[in-house]
């Protein structure tokens, strides 16, 4: 932050996951904002955005939940910072839908018993880092560059899609994560599965789906030579991190080509691709890596509360 320029201040909507299973994302986000001298004030009395279940059951419910949260956010100064990809998607979708559909807006305003405030910019942490704070300044503020760390940046489904709604980056071929990683001194790798689905909340109802999809993501990251994967979504983190053990139990200790030709050799095991060990891949939140690079105390970033231990890798790269 250059002297004399106004400090960046944000209102903050953490969402349910960040207060529970994704606690590391929350504490590392706060640590990062502190390290970058940016203000972050939690919206008082916020509640669930409705996530995937609400809009699957009732669109009006899902829009109303977000509209109410957006109204609450008006009470805190600054653009609304959101870390969770699903909360981000729901809040952006609500703004988008209600701005384009007057009838829907009327329904929602009846439901929440008052006018809906749609004007506050909703910003994902990635956007705040790359655009508001700026890549150049990010680079200047580095205390501990992530030298030699090969990172597969994983976008998942919601950050950039659908077209025209989140407006974060190119819908199918984004680069914002790689840009940030480069600014942090890390080495973003090129890989194939950065936009594929991890299985999301099927992790509870049909874990088999998640094992298959997450395996494909982990495997392609390993094949591309990644040391770790970086995510910006608590659910992606959960699936990729927690399910590694289950994947090994189901598919064995060696990577195998899962990508068969449905018209030829279907689901071939041990296919043409180079087989590798199904080694563990630590999964980081963007905020954990960024905060680490900005010199935040590693003990406060939640590295000990994840399943696939990232500390050996970080020690190996002299980052701990």
């Amino acid at each position: 932050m250059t002297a004399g320029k106004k400090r960046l201040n944000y209102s903050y909507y953490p969402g349910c996951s960040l207060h529970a299973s994704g606690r590391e994302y929350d504490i590392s986000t706060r640590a990062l904002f502190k390290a970058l001298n940016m203000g972050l004030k939690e919206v008082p009395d916020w509640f669930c955005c409705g996530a995937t279940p609400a809009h699957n059951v009732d669109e009006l419910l899902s829009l109303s939940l977000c509209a109410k949260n957006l109204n609450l956010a008006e009470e805190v100064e600054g653009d609304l910072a959101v870390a969770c990809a699903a909360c981000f998607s729901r809040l952006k979708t609500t703004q988008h839908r209600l701005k384009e559909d007057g009838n829907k807006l009327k329904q929602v305003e009846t439901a929440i018993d008052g006018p809906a405030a749609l004007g506050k910019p909703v910003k994902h942490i990635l956007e705040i880092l790359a655009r508001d704070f700026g890549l150049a300044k990010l680079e200047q503020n580095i205390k501990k560059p992530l030298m030699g760390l090969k990172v597969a940046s994983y976008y998942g489904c919601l950050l950039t899609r659908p077209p025209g709604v989140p407006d974060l980056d190119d819908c199918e071929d984004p680069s914002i994560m790689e840009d940030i990683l480069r600014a942090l001194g890390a080495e973003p790798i090129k890989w194939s599965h950065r936009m594929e689905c991890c299985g999301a909340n099927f992790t509870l109802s049909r874990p088999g789906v998640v094992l298959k999809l997450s395996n494909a993501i982990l495997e392609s990251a390993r094949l591309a030579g990644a040391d770790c994967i970086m995510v910006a979504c608590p659910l992606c983190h959960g699936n990729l991190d927690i399910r590694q053990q289950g994947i090994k139990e189901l598919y064995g200790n060696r990577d195998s080509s899962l990508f068969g030709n449905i018209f030829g050799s279907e689901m071939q095991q041990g296919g043409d691709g180079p087989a590798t060990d199904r080694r563990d891949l630590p999964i980081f939140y963007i905020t954990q890596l960024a905060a680490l690079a900005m010199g935040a105390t590693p003990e406060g970033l939640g590295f000990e509360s994840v399943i696939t231990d990232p500390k050996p890798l970080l020690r190996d790269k002299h980052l701990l």
Partner: protein
Amino acid sequence: MSRIGVFVCHCGENISRTVDVEQVAKAAGDIPGVAYSCDYKYMCSDPGQNLLKKAVSEQKLDGVVVAACSPRMHEKTFRKAAAAAGLNQYLCDMANIREHCSWVHEDKKLGTAKASDIVKLMVQRVKKGKALAPITVPVTKKALVIGGGIAGIQAALDIADAGHQVLLVERDPSIGGHMAQLSETFPTLDCSQCIMTPKMVDVANHPNITLYTFAEVEKVEGYIGNFSVTVRRKARSVDEEKCTGCGICMTKCPKKKIPNDFDQGHGLRTAIYVPFPQAVPNTPVIDRENCTMFQSGKCGVCAKVCGPGAVDFQQEDRVTVEAVGAVVVATGFKLYSIDRKPEGSAIQGYGEFGYGTIPDVIDGMTFERLASASGPTGGRILRPSDGREPKQVVFIQCVGSRAREKGISYCSKVCCMYTAKHTMLYHHKVHDGQAYVFYMDARTPGKGYDEFWRRAVEEEEAVYIRGMVSRLYQKGDKIVVMGSDTLVGVQVEIEADLVVMATAVQAQDGADLLAQKLGISYDKYNFYSEAHAKLKPVECATAGIYLAGACQGPKDIPDTVSQASAAAAKVMTLFSKDQLERDPVVAKVNEKYCVGCLACKKVCPYGAVEEKGIRDRQGNLVKVTAYVNPGVCGGCGTCQATCPSKSVELDGYTDEQIMAMIEAL
């Protein structure tokens, strides 16, 4: 007192649905100076026109207002009818109560009031109008054809065969365009070069055709029948008169490894080159950026070996100005290069397909070159990365086309058919290979087209998968194609050796700039606009300029050739007359009041204003005034609005007429 007649048209229900036409006619009858008014279901029909004629002669009308559609639609019709009844045609005007009123309003009461107001205005205009005589202009019976692809070639040959002179201007060193690049053509699989090259030779040999290749149209001035075009003939560095086309310069040129655009960058050429062996003219051109002589001043091998001494390193661009009477625009298309999003463009890229980073992901035109006997592989299907024969080829249709979220919503029209053709060519050349096609819909309207596509599926064993591809990525030496089969409802992954994308057909680079030079309109995709989508499909709204081929919108060869011949027929119709009549809506300078400030000259978009010296009988200059050349004046009225002393006026739109219209409101 004037005797104006007002005729209100129902236009079926187009007008009467939202305008009470009887009421409008009745109100018109009450306007002072209106001697007759009526309404009729279809004024443009024969009985409608007769009604008008009869009223003019019986009621002794001295002016007519037809309240109906846009004057662009039927002004000519009604003026002709009025003239037939003995009225000066320029005293017949139209009140547009359809496009400007009934089509855009819903409330009948308000619509009726507005229609009445429009009629009131036009009555005032006609009342203050003067009888005018049409202007006649001579026709230069020579046509300019811009673009030497199949469209331009066909148009040029047709016009030349009718006995008229043609100037054909082509930007590249050879004519032939995209069609010369194709291997075989749908739906008959005849070899493109075999049907194309004879026509190219005909152009070169035709006594009525002047061919300028490696040349560009720089400026177009004038108007129908009388255009003046400036053409820049770029320096070839080879004298076209002296060169015999022996080709020894090319065999001796030491720079041999320059990617050849004609082969989509996959073949190699020398620095002095013809794009392909059948080029017309068969005169090489030196690519100065890659020529050692031009870059370092040392070499000159081509000049040394050239027998007739045709190589001329000192040659400069030549600029010629030609007079022509008509212009056929046939500048063709380009294929969407799907890389990342182009800077400043509304069109998104396709980074997720890895085009440009995965060597074996190619576009349809590259596949044509691979399949062509004259191509870089001699007609063998070999993949660019390692030269191996691909055994699994995935074709993806609609890449860029019909993709609103990527910025292009139109269908490129030719891809369904050429992809079906590609699968056949592949099957004919690689018998143990398998072709897959991802498609949204198979669109095959055209003679013999659907049969052709069915043949690809049923006899040539192409597997068609209805669904789009989300991503391509390299895995070992394979390309993984991730897509969906929406008929079966499953995700599909295919490991392909080669991926061919049917990328969108787009307007040529610089199409907008050429349109601005010509003064023709274009759509948001830079395709040129025809005057009427159905009834004037080859004419531009600008008189004397015609369209042929894909510059107007994506088109296949049969459609392109049809349109080119149609454009040629329009040119011949124009050339069948020695004189053209045009509307006398031109500006006239009142020399008595003009002070010669020439502000009008600065603002005239047509360059019609000249300086004129007023001299007394002894020849002494009394004063300088402006003069408007009626042949060049476009009748826009900008001078009239600019003139500080109000001494220039547009016939038919005089200040008196316009003030009367305003006062009537």
